[in-house]
C-alpha cells in the first residue's frame, strides 16, 4: 500500500526532473567540484597552520584531532566538555586546551556551507538516478533485466538540450553510424548545422523513454535526421535495426568483460569436480563428454526448457526427451544449460552423478561403411552407454541419422526402442524444424517421455547473428553494414540456404567475407552483396547449367544404381560436389577436379559416364587421354601444339567445346610439364596454347586417375582397417612423388576404388551377364542368369579374388562358348531357351 502511494507520488512529480534540466550536468559538476575542493582546501590549510604553529609529533594525529576540534568549535558545544570526554582516548589532549581557530569563525562557516551544498547535490543526483532506474525497470516489466547504461548515458547527456547531438557524440551513436556506413565528417557536418533542438522530456513521458525502440523512434522524429538518412539512402527500419544490433553487441561485450561473467567464471578451476574412470570405449570415439558450459550467456528462454528437462529427470531417472528446435546450436545450448543444472541438482543426488555425452552423428556416419557396420557400431555405442548406467546420450541431427539408416535399410527407432525402455540410459534426440523428417513418422514422439518444442528463438537468433557477424568481422578485418547483413539473409535462398538457420546464414556471410577480403573491401555495403550474388550466380550457370542440389541428389541415386560396392567413392564425390557448390560461388575460374585412385578401370569409366550425363547432358562425350603416351619431353607440344605448326590434341578439343569432362588416365606416368599443364588447368582454369591463344577451362570437369597404390592388400574382414585403408592408399600415392605435390593438393576430391568383394562382386557379375543376356535376346536366344552361372563367373570355387576384367574374361572364355555349344546342340528350335545348372560346369 505504502509502496503504491509512493510510486504514484513519484509518477506525478516526475516533472521534478526539471531540476535536473535546470541544473545541467556540467554546472552540477562545476558546483560540486568547486565546493568540494574549497572545503578540502580549507581543511588542509587550517591543518597546516596548526602544524606550523604547534609542534606535533605526527601529522595524522593532528588532522584527526583538528577535525574533532573543528566540530567542537561549533557554537553551543563547550570545548572543555568534549575535552573531558576525549582525554582518555587521545594522547595529545593538550591541543584541546588551546582555542586554535577561534578567530576563524567566518571561514569555518563557509567551509561548512560548501560541505552542505556538496552533500545536497550528491543526494539529489542519487535520487534522480534512482528514479531513472526504477522507471526503466517498470517499463521492462522485469526487474531482473539490467538497465542499459548506454541509454542512460545518452539520456543524462540530453541536459545539453539536444538528444540527437548527445546520441551521435556517445560511443553508441558512433558505432551506429559506422554500422550504417555514414562517415564521420558527415555526422560532424550534420551536428554543426543543426538548428532545432529536441529535448525528450518535452514530449515524451518518462515511462516511454527507456526502451531502445522508443529511443530510436524519438530520434527519428527529427526532420533533419530523416533528411540525412534519406540523402544517404538509409531507411528508418535500417536505422532502428542498427541501433538494436549495436545494443546486442554491447551487451555481449559486457557479458564477456564482466569479471563475474560466465566466461570469466568458466576459467576458474572448479573445486569439487568429479573424475570418472570411463568404461565406455566406443562412446569416447563418437560421443565425447560434454562439459558444463558456463560460457553460454544466460538466456531465460533457454533456461525454461532446461529446467523442464531437469525436473522430469529428477522424477524419472530414465526419462527420454524428444527435442524439436529451430536451430541445432540452440538445441545444444539447452543441453548445455541442462548439464550445468544437473551438476547442481539438490533434489536427486543420483542425477548429479550423470554425465551428458553428445553423439557425433556426422563422425559416426563417416566411419560407417555398410549396413552391418552401421548396426554393429550403433548398437555397441548404445550398449556401452547403457552399461555405464550414468549417461545421458544426446543424439543431435537425428534426422540425418534416420535418413542414413533408411539408406542402409534400418528403422533407427526399432534399433533405439530397447534402449528407450532401458532404466540405465537417458536419450535425448534433437530434431531440426527445418528437416521435417519426424513429421512423416507420427508415432516417433510417442516413444519418448517428453516432447519439448522450442520455437521462440527469434530474439536468440538475432543474438547468435550478432555473435557470428562479430566473429567473421574480427577474422577478416571487415565491417558489415546493417543493410548488407539484411541482404545476405534475404539472399540465402538464392544459394539454396535457409534464411532462418543461423548456420546457413553464417556460411553465406563467410563466403561474402572472403569475397570482400579478396577484393580489398573494408566496409561491406549492399552493393557489394549484389556484386557477390551476380558473380556467384553467373559462375554456377556457366559451370553446370541449371545444376542445383536436387540434381546432386539425383546424381547420387544414379551413381548408386550404376556403381556397385563403392559407396565410399560415391559419398566422397557427392560431398565434395556439395562443398564446391557451397564454397566456390565467386571464384569462377577453378573447375571441379577429381582424382581417382585404385585399379578398377571399368568403374572409373562408369563414374565418369554418369557424371558427364548429369552435368552436360546425354549426348555429351568426354575426352579420354591416357597419359602413358605423354611421358617424354615432346608430349606437351602434342597437347598444346607448336608455334606455327599443328594444333595440339587438347587445344583442338578446347577450341571446339569448352564444357565437358576431360579424363586423364595414368596421371603418374605423365611428364612433369604435362602435370604442370593439368595443374594450371585445375587451379587457374586457363591454359595457353603454343600459338598464344588462351583457352578457358573453368567450365570443365577434370578427372584424373592413377592405378598406383596397393589396394589388393585390404583385409575385408577387419572393418577398422578398412576405414583407415583409404587414407593409407592416398598417403602411399602422395609419398611416391610420381605426381607433383601441388597438383595432388589442388584436387577437390581424392577417392579410392576398392576391389569389389563378396556380394558386390556377384552383383557386378550379374549385371554384366544380364547385359549379355539382353544382347542374346535380340538374336532370339533366351538366356536365364542364375546363381550357378554367377558363381562360375566370380570364381566362387577358387580361392583367389577376381577383378572385374577377370569376370569379363570368364564370361567370354567359359560362358559364351557354353552358350554357343548349347545353341548348336538344339538346332531346329525357333526359340532357344538356355538355363545352366550345376552339372553343366562339373
Amino acid at each position, binding site marked *: 500500500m505504502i509502496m503504491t502511494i509512493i510510486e504514484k507520488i513519484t509518477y506525478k512529480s516526475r516533472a521534478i526532473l526539471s531540476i535536473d534540466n535546470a541544473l545541467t550536468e556540467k554546472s552540477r559538476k562545476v558546483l560540486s567540484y568547486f565546493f568540494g575542493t574549497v572545503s578540502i582546501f580549507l581543511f588542509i590549510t587550517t591543518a597546516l597552520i596548526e602544524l606550523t604553529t604547534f609542534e606535533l609529533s605526527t601529522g595524522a594525529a593532528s588532522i584527526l584531532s583538528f577535525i574533532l576540534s573543528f566540530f567542537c568549535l561549533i557554537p553551543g558545544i563547550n570545548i572543555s566538555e568534549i575535552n573531558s570526554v576525549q582525554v582518555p582516548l587521545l594522547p595529545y589532549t593538550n591541543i584541546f586546551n588551546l582555542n586554535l581557530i577561534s578567530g576563524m*569563525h567566518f571561514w569555518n562557516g563557509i567551509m561548512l556551507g560548501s560541505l552542505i551544498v556538496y552533500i545536497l547535490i550528491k543526494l539529489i543526483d542519487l535520487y534522480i538516478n534512482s528514479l531513472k532506474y526504477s522507471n526503466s525497470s517498470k517499463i521492462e516489466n522485469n526487474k531482473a533485466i539490467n538497465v542499459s547504461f548506454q541509454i542512460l548515458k545518452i539520456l543524462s547527456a540530453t541536459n545539453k538540450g539536444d538528444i540527437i547531438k548527445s546520441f551521435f557524440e556517445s560511443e553508441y551513436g558512433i558505432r551506429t553510424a559506422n554500422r550504417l556506413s555514414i562517415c564521420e565528417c558527415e555526422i560532424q557536418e550534420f551536428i554543426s548545422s543543426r538548428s532545432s533542438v529536441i529535448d525528450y522530456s518535452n514530449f515524451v513521458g518518462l515511462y516511454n523513454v527507456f526502451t531502445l525502440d522508443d529511443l530510436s523512434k524519438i530520434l527519428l522524429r527529427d526532420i533533419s535526421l530523416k533528411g540525412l538518412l534519406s540523402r544517404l539512402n538509409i531507411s528508418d527500419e535500417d536505422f532502428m535495426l542498427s541501433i538494436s544490433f549495436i545494443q546486442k553487441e554491447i551487451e555481449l561485450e559486457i557479458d564477456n568483460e564482466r569479471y563475474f561473467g560466465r566466461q570469466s567464471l568458466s576459467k*576458474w578451476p572448479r573445486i569439487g569436480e568429479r573424475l570418472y574412470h570411463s568404461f565406455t570405449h566406443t562412446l569416447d570415439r563418437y560421443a565425447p563428454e560434454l562439459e558444463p558450459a558456463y560460457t553460454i550467456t544466460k538466456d531465460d528462454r533457454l533456461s525454461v526448457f532446461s529446467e523442464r528437462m531437469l525436473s522430469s529427470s529428477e522424477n524419472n531417472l530414465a526419462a527420454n526427451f524428444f527435442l524439436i528446435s529451430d536451430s541445432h546450436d540452440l538445441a545444444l545450448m539447452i543441453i548445455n544449460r541442462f548439464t550445468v543444472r544437473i551438476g547442481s541438482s539438490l533434489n536427486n543426488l543420483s542425477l548429479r552423478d550423470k554425465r551428458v555425452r553428445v553423439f557425433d552423428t556426422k563422425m559416426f556416419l563417416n566411419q560407417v561403411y555398410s549396413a552391418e557396420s552401421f548396426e554393429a557400431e550403433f548398437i555397441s555405442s548404445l550398449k556401452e552407454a547403457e552399461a555405464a548406467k550414468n549417461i545421458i546420450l544426446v543424439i543431435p541431427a537425428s534426422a540425418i541419422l534416420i535418413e542414413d539408416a533408411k539408406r542402409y535399410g534400418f528403422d533407427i527407432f526399432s534399433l533405439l526402442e530397447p534402449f528407450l525402455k532401458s532404466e540405465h540410459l537417458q536419450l535425448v534426440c534433437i530434431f531440426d524444424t527445418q528437416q521435417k523428417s519426424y513429421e512423416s513418422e507420427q508415432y516417433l514422439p510417442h516413444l519418448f517421455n517428453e516432447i519439448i518444442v522450442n520455437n521462440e528463438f527469434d530474439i536468440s537468433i538475432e543474438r547468435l547473428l550478432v555473435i557470428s557477424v562479430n566473429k567473421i568481422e574480427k577474422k577478416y578485418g571487415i565491417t558489415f553494414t546493417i543493410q548488407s547483413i539484411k541482404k545476405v539473409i534475404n539472399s540465402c535462398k538464392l544459394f539454396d540456404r535457409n534464411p532462418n538457420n543461423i548456420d546457413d546464414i553464417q556460411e553465406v556471410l563467410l563466403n561474402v567475407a572472403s569475397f570482400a577480403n579478396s577484393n580489398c573491401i573494408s566496409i561491406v555495403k549492399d552493393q557489394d552483396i549484389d556484386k557477390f550474388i551476380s558473380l556467384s550466380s553467373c559462375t554456377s550457370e556457366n559451370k553446370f547449367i541449371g545444376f542445383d542440389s536436387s540434381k546432386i541428389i539425383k546424381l547420387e541415386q544414379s551413381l548408386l544404381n550404376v556403381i556397385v560396392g563403392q559407396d565410399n567413392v560415391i559419398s566422397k564425390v557427392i560431398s565434395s560436389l556439395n562443398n564446391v557448390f557451397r564454397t566456390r560461388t565467386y571464384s569462377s575460374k577453378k573447375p571441379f577436379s577429381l582424382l581417382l585412385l585404385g585399379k578398377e578401370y571399368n568403374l572409373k569409366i562408369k563414374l565418369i559416364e554418369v557424371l558427364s550425363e548429369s552435368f552436360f547432358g546425354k549426348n555429351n562425350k568426354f575426352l579420354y587421354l591416357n597419359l602413358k603416351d605423354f611421358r617424354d619431353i615432346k608430349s606437351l607440344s602434342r597437347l598444346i601444339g607448336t608455334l606455327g605448326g599443328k594444333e595440339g590434341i587438347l587445344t583442338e578439343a578446347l577450341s571446339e567445346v569448352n564444357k565437358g569432362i576431360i579424363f586423364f588416365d595414368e596421371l603418374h606416368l605423365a611428364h612433369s610439364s604435362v602435370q604442370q599443364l593439368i595443374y594450371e588447368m585445375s587451379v587457374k582454369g586457363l591454359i595457353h596454347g603454343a600459338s598464344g591463344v588462351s583457352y578457358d577451362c573453368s567450365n570443365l570437369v577434370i578427372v584424373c586417375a592413377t592405378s598406383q597404390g596397393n589396394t589388393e592388400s585390404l583385409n575385408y574382414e577387419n572393418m577398422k582397417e578398412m576405414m583407415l585403408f583409404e587414407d593409407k592408399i592416398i598417403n602411399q600415392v602422395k609419398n611416391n612423388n610420381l605426381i607433383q605435390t601441388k597438383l595432388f593438393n589442388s584436387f577437390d576430391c581424392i577417392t579410392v576404388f576398392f576391389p569389389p568383394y563378396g556380394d558386390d562382386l556377384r552383383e557386378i557379375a550379374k549385371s554384366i551377364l544380364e547385359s549379355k543376356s539382353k544382347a542374346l535376346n535380340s538374336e532370339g536366344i533366351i538366356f536365364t542368369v542364375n546363381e550357378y552361372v554367377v558363381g562360375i563367373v566370380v570364381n566362387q570355387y577358387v580361392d583367389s579374388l577376381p577383378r572385374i576384367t577377370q569376370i569379363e574374361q570368364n564370361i567370354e572364355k567359359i560362358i559364351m562358348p557354353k552358350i554357343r555349344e548349347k545353341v548348336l546342340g538344339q538346332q531346329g528350335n525357333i526359340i532357344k531357351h538356355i538355363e545352366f545348372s550345376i552339372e553343366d560346369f562339373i
Partner: protein
Amino acid sequence: MKVLSFPIQYILWHYSTALVNIFEIARNYSWATSRFFSTRLLLSNFFNPIHTVIESDSYLKGNFFALLSHSLKCWMFSFIGVSLRLPAIILAIFCNILIYLLSISIALLWLLLPFSVIYLSFSSITLLLV
C-alpha cells in the same frame, strides 16, 4: 508547487526506496562473493571425495582387499576434499559478514544524513553570523 513538493518526495524516497536499495546492493555483493567462492557448490558436495573413483562391481565383489583399498581411497579423497573446501567456505562466510556489517553501518549513516545536513546548515549559519 512542484518545487515545494520536492523535499517531501525526497524524504519519502530517502527513508523507503533508498534504504531498501542499500540492502539490495548489499545482497548483490553477497551474491557475488558466494558466487566467487562457489559456496553453494562447495556446500552441496562438502563431503564428496575430491575425485570420485568408480570401480566396476564385478571387480569389487568378493574381493575384500579391493573393497578395502577402494573405501580407503574414497575416505582419503573425501578428507582432501573437505580440507580444501572448508577454508574457502569459511572465507566466503567471513566476507559475507563483513559486507553486511558495512552495509548496516552505511544504512545507519544514511538515516542520519538528512539530520546532519540540517544540523550542519544551522551551525554554518551561526558561524557566519558570529
